[in-house]
């Protein structure tokens, strides 16, 4: 992007490579169609201009339906191909590999707060290791923001009131721009930062240099006790409350007869709106913690509950 006339953004994720080929394909088809339109228009306009007496204007095409069917079918087939191509990449963009590292993101007017599982915290910056898939678990504390890294060709709106995820596999070291892509108020344009992709060794050093007293799940464990969660969900609790060990990622039977997957969004919802996430077989006695915990505290609790073990796959 240092060129005087920049045309292409840097590419730094595995998906970016596939994206670039898709872009080349779209561009080729577009140029072909546009070229056809331009050539036909200028040719017809030049040849059949009114003062060109020499032009043969007889035998105008009477039956037009075979032309109609022709270009309708051709458009449809090309469109179908583009659809399938784009959808294929999109589906992979939304299925993170199981070994992806979870990193938590909280957006607020007008900053990005990043929390690594090891307890490292960053603001408007994200450090990740080369060739190590990362899965971002994101939420907003106020309005909708958009997490956008052009070099990864990825973008995800970050909503208040729920978790959304975004994953990528960085494949090129460097520093890349991070933007907020969803208009979020006065300083929207200033809400951004940098994603730094580092060689694995450098990343380990960075983690060590920025280590805090406790890991994220450690923070969560302290909070779990302080907030009184362990009074019911703890090991020695006498109240019949769902066991949290091995909960994450598995199915949960709900009191209303349905079922849900206990992903981060479900766990968050169960803490803040327990009435709507009631597990089957338990009395609906859990109070809501909405308004008592901010999003960063909820993130720590979620990380702690995940650290208690995942459901068997």
């Amino acid at each position, binding site marked *: 992007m240092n060129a005087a006339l920049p*045309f292409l953004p840097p590419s730094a994720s595995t998906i970016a490579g596939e994206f670039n080929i898709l872009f080349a394909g*779209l561009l080729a088809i577009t140029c072909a169609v546009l070229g056809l339109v331009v050539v036909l228009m200028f040719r017809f306009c030049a040849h059949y201009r009114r003062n060109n007496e020499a032009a043969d204007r007889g035998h105008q095409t009477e039956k037009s339906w075979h*032309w109609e069917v022709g270009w309708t079918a051709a458009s449809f087939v090309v469109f179908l191909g583009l659809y399938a191509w784009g959808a294929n990449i999109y589906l992979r963009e939304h299925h993170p590999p199981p070994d992806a590292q979870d990193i938590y993101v909280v957006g607020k007017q007008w900053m990005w707060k990043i929390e690594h599982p090891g307890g490292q915290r960053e603001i408007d910056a994200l450090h990740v290791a080369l060739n190590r898939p990362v899965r971002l678990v994101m939420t907003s504390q106020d309005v909708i923001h958009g997490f956008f890294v052009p070099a990864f060709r990825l973008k995800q709106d970050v909503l208040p009131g729920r978790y959304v995820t975004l994953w990528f596999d960085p494949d090129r070291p460097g520093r890349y721009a991070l933007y907020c892509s969803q208009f979020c108020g006065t300083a929207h344009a200033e809400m951004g930062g940098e994603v730094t992709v580092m060689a694995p060794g450098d990343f380990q050093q960075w983690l060590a240099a920025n280590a805090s007293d406790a890991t994220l799940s450690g923070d969560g464990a302290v909070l779990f006790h302080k907030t009184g969660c362990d009074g019911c969900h703890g090991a020695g609790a006498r109240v019949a409350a769902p066991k949290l060990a091995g909960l994450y990622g598995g199915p949960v039977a709900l009191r209303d007869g349905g079922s849900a997957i206990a992903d981060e969004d479900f766990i968050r919802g169960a803490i803040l709106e327990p009435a709507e996430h009631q597990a089957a077989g338990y009395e609906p006695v859990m109070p809501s913690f909405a308004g008592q915990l901010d999003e960063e505290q909820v993130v720590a609790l979620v990380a702690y509950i995940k650290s208690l073990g995942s459901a068997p796959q």
Partner: protein
Amino acid sequence: MTATTIVELPRPRGDSYLTDGTTLSSWLLTHDHKRIAILYCLSITVFFFIGGAAAALIRLNLITPRGLLLDAETYNRIFTLHGVVMVWLFLVPSIPTTFGNFLLPLMLGAKDLAFPRINLLSWYLFVLSGVIVLAGLIGGSVDTGWTFYEPLSSGYASGALVVVVGGIFVNGFSSILTGLNFVVTIHRLRAPGLTWYRLPIFCWSTYATSVILMLATPVLAVTLLLVAAEHLWGVGVFDPAHGGDPLLFQHMFWFYSHPAVYIMILPGMGVVSEIVPAFARKPLFGYHFVAWSSVAIAVIGFLVWGHHMFVAGESIYAALVFSFLSFIVAVPSAIKVFNWLATLHKGSISFEAPMLYALGFILLFTIGGLTGLFLATLAFDEHVTATYFVVAHFHYIMVGGMVSAYFAALHYWWPKVTGRLYPESWARFAAILIFFGFNLTFFPQFILGYLGMPRRYATYPPEFQVWNVFSSAGASILAAAYVLPLFYLTWSLFRGERAPGNPWGATGLEWQSASPPPTDNFERTPRVTRPPYDYPEPAA
């Protein structure tokens, strides 16, 4: 006259609709669809230049990365004003309320619309809504963008939000009543012999537009009322802090606002379908396909709203369906472009200003449509949505397409409306200037978006500057090109050569009436016996 009717109409005695009453009240209380069209034309011209001034400030500010003259809050208010004014006070009403109003009864061989008084009421509601919206935007401080996304608007915007939203609510009634009036008119007031397949395409596309106006606008009205209720009384609908769902807002908003895109472009397609045959002296190629493609766009257009939300948090299965339907809705648009091109084949083409605008429309609409395919492609959208790529795309459709079509219509029917000819050289010059100014303004924005510059940024990283400077340079050309017609058309009103009834030798009932038409349009109701665009085939 070889064209549509068998009735040779003498120039009616007496005065035209323009001289039938000269007092202010004869205009402000008129029931004549032609005068109401003029009232609309004057109002939307004012709104167009207000919205345009906001656009000029935006482009001026973006010349430098830190912003040339506006602070962030002012910038956000200015682009909100630009969007709201251009969408609801110019683009949605533009061609339907001016040329739809003026031409529909003439094209149908009728004396007026089905409900002339409701037509006047629509105009008053429109002007009222414009005053309310502008009072809220200029007097208050609304900086949510024209999309009013939640929970930003109900939870964080100032009180003037309710004023603006209320103005748009009133505007909706004007839209609905206009749509209703057009639909009833097309059903009930066609001249004897004017069957559906003898209607000019402009009538078909106005019909399709009207159906969207009637069906989509109420959803917007409901949505805006809920936003106001949440803002005023904390009723929890969209804001998670009150137990609402912000995605619900986006679904409801785009359920109106995507069909609204077709409200804005279908009339333009209708205009081009009139002008291309007239200047190629040839029947429109594939009339039935062009006619039904308007209807297809109107119907499928209701099923694609989710393509605005591919990264908003909607389910990936919803995204797969909306992407597919978005490709499908592009097919009828492609059909139209190919049919216009085929109409040129073996034509006898002349290049007066309306034709230049129409050809410009076809090129710019094609670029806008093709980049729409980029955006319908899921993986590509994930990178460029909410960037300048989207801004460029919809301006190619809305400005390159719709505004070009509006200017095409303005020049093509100018002699009919005013009874005067416009100065041809100036008009051609303006048409060419608009084409180049437009491309210089908006093509760099595709590149900006692809590089990753998000939209609605008051400031931006320095590496984006060069393309922003190109864009702003283009905008200054475009601004000059848009002001130019204001001068030469005003000149033509007073000094222009008198126009004959049918200066282009075009078919269509409106050309059978005098220029300007008498108040009742036709002395006797015409009888139609021929198909539309019945231009004679030259000998082989």
